[in-house]
């Protein structure tokens, strides 16, 4: 089987790349090993939230030019990063999720521990707060858990909010909607994860005609007249944003849905929407499989072999490697060095192990291992023993040279580098097609 493009990795970068290839009419295959980092992501998209000195970024696109050389954004330039995010927003809208933003400015995304993270796009079920004054217009906030979900801690969220001087005058209340109120039955409801609660609610509550009003009145009772009601994202996966909208209509309250401890339903929802969009465009999705080796000929990757089909190599003109960082198993390490797990490409060198990390785990530290990853040229082509591989592009967290967490740039880098890989691939195709020459 021969493809125009094969995308390796089904996370945000791989999906963006695959959608763009498929939309351009390329015969595209996407190989996904399983759940991606989106399962552990907020469901918002950050582009650039912090400068290198930890200062907050108000306007992410304007700040790109000040990033250090070698940062993926510097290779793209602000205009292309913006174009790629517009493309992404359009695709999400096509898939039924209208992402919201504050114009060109970042907003604050509230987290389940009451922290504020800068983001640029959020799903409508989450309520973007102002970056400078997150508590603007808020006098009373109600934090309501659902069925005592162990992966959402209202007391900690309240404690986190109280750490913001802006929330000093805001009254915080805590509540819980009991499992029996919303017809949730399980062997032990206190052990359910977000996804299990959503599945049971679909079966036991929302299947009933009065299900929505039952939940709405429970929220009203628990929240009183709060200006903002914070709920754990446990109500639904795919149609969660619509559900929040309907509940707002029923309750007359402003509801904010927050990702719990994993799995994060807003993140899964985003992955699901993008996969659906990709399939709609005719793309082939090979799920549960992974690439075990590549057949290289000098500067080109000719074909790949996967775990499930070891005897049938998949051939393509172009490949995109978007396998993620260490926790997605795109990168691997041993006591003395690190490697790209898929093709053994050249990686940003790391020095000795004791210099890979900082002695403080969370305390504002920038761990060097976050910057580790595959080294590329300005077109995001990687090297293998110094040799550029011209028909292979790298995208997302497998890339080196940026810190997705400390910079709050994970989403934007994934989308823009995935988008650029596809842009470069499709550009070659339209040339070929324009000249009416068969590709092979």
């Amino acid at each position, binding site marked *: 089987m021969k493809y125009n493009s094969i995308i390796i990795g089904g996370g945000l970068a791989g999906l963006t790349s695959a959608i763009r290839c498929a939309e351009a009419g390329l015969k595209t295959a996407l190989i996904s090993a399983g759940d991606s980092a989106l399962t552990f992501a907020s469901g918002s998209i950050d582009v650039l939230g912090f400068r290198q000195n930890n200062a907050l970024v108000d306007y992410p696109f304007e700040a790109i030019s000040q990033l250090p050389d070698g940062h993926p954004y510097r290779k793209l330039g602000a205009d292309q990063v913006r174009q790629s995010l517009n493309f992404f927003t359009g695709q999400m809208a096509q898939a039924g999720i209208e992402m919201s933003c504050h114009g060109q400015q970042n907003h604050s995304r509230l987290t389940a521990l009451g922290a504020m993270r800068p983001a640029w796009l959020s799903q409508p079920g989450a309520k973007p707060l102002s970056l400078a004054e997150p508590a603007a217009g808020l006098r009373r906030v109600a934090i309501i858990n659902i069925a005592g979900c162990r992966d959402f801690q209202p007391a900690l969220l309240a404690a986190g909010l109280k750490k913001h*001087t802006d929330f000093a005058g805001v009254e915080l209340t805590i509540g819980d909607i009991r499992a029996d109120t919303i017809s949730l039955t399980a062997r032990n409801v206190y052990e359910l994860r977000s996804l299990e609660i959503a599945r049971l609610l679909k079966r036991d509550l929302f299947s009933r005609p009065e299900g929505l009003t039952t939940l709405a009145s429970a929220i009203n009772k628990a929240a009183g007249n709060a200006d903002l009601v914070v709920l754990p994202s446990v109500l639904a996966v795919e149609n969660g944003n619509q559900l929040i909208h309907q509940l707002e209509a029923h309750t007359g309250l402003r509801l904010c849905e927050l990702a719990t401890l994993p799995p994060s339903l807003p993140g899964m929802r985003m992955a699901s929407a993008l996969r659906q969009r990709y399939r709609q465009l005719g793309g082939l999705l090979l799920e549960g499989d992974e690439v075990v080796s590549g057949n290289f000929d000098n500067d080109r990757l000719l074909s790949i072999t996967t775990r499930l089909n070891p005897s049938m190599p998949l051939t393509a003109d172009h490949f995109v490697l978007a396998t993620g960082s260490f926790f997605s198993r795109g990168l691997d390490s041993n006591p003395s060095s690190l490697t790209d797990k898929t093709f053994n490409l050249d990686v940003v060198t790391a020095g000795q192990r004791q210099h890979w990390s900082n002695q403080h785990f969370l305390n504002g530290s920038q761990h060097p291992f976050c910057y580790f990853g595959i080294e590329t040229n300005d077109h995001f082509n990687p090297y293998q023993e110094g040799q550029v591989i011209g028909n292979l592009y790298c995208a997302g967290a497998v890339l080196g040279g940026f810190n997705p967490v400390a910079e709050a740039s994970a989403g934007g880098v994934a989308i823009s580098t995935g988008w650029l890989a596809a842009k470069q691939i499709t550009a070659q195709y339209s040339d070929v097609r324009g000249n009416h020459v068969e590709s092979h």
Partner: protein
Amino acid sequence: MKQIETEVVIIGGGATGAGVLRDCALRGMRAILVEKDDIANGTTGRNHGLMHSGARYAVTDQHSAVECIKENRILRKIAGHCIEETDGLFITLPEDELSFQDKFISACHSAGISAEPLTPAEALRIEPNVNPQLLGAVRVPDGTIDPFRLTASSILDAEEYGGRLMNYIRVTGLIIDNGRVCGVHCINVKTGEAVDIRALQVVNAAGIWGQQIAEYADLSIRMFPAKGSLLIVDYRINSMVINRCRKPADADILVPGDTISLIGTTSEKVPYQDIENIRVNPDEVETLLTEGTKLCPIMAQTRVLRAYCGVRPLVSLGNDSSGRNISRGIVLVDHGEADALPGLITITGGKLMTSRLMAEMATDAVAKNLGNSSRCETAEKPLPGARGQQAEIHAPKVSIPVSGSAKYRHGERAASFLSDDQKQNAIICECEMVTRGEIEYAVNNLNAKNLVDLRRRTRIGMGPCQGEMCSCRAAGIVSEMTHSDNSENALDSIGEFLQERWKGVRPVLWGDAMCEADFSYWLYDNLLGYNQLQSIPAPVSEQLCTEQLSTEQKSIAAVESV
């Protein structure tokens, strides 16, 4: 200033201090134990957890060997829930002298330790993961002991007899009146509050930190700190303790414990002023891996979970400053007799294995000074939890792995938190099967004040994920239990807990550990934004810093951002 009066103050919440508190309480003395951190946080909690048969010392130190086998038999009787009777193998590898075996066996026998020679085939049958190249093996009654549980149970027993633990209370000086030690000046490290505890007898059981306590009275106890490092691997790769049958050396003991195995230890002299800042070095990790793989080759393919190190409290007696006269045995000093400073007793040296005996010796000295003639019962009276085997615990709605883990850790006391209540039975730490009920029990009954303490009482966060999900869940429970005024502390304790876990992961940061650390970092700093909570209001918005402010405001912003 808070003032408390009692009969005995014990300094140091290790196995020995906890043992003294228990012994004093059982003999009817009013006693308070002060600990600057949490129980078992020092050397007690940073060793192999090996229940020595004494075989390791048989050839080089008969006296210690005899002490060990005696205490070994006592612990089997009184601390069943803290120990596992795994037995141990002393194996001879091709690079070792097989002739040492005979010497070893006869030394064991003369110390009263059973030592049964096995053929390589017999050894491989009972311990399939042992290095198949072994030339011979000797089976001895080694076992494992959980030092956290031993210490917590001793405290629990003491408290039930009127003793009292005050953790997070640091001694800042000794109260000395008319040439007599009459108590301790302390500070609550959490609140900063000063506390004076007046007592008739003060017991210095502070281990390696005992030198500082003695210095408060201008006495000199010279400690020679020796750092020992260990690695934890993520599976229980051996079912018996495995030693090398040769003179004790680096990294030659592999001990199974709960769900994991431990390889250790190295030995390195460290300057006394560095004892708070010791770390596991890369070359120690290398040595531990290389030597451990010789004991069980499968270790090379097993994930290393974390590394840690402790300091052995070796004591130099008299005025020997060279360190040649270092004792590994028990050192008991009644400073009334030795230095004409009555009221102060120091108990130090020794080993985890002999901590009960050390406590007995110290308490005998206290009792003598106080005219208390009650008999020591600590060698016969089982610790709370030790009767788990016989206990009937009714919890039909709890799955066997959960009730089994609870019983394994808390013996018959597990009955007080295993119930039919769904909320209580909800699993909070899936790696180690810790329920909400167990967490509440540890907070209410075992003096656990934060997440790090909870780990020592329950094993929460000690599994493969190193506390990724359970730290938030448990912090939520602690904050619910202790009401809203403590929520901020609970939130802060997540960071402390993860930092404490990180200390152990960082020396072995590769492969799966790297994968897990990357995930944790992503989860806490990205998804949950934890770092933003710590640095508020440090990250000043760029616009505040620059053009939009007047010069005057700028200077304020600059000051605030410092």
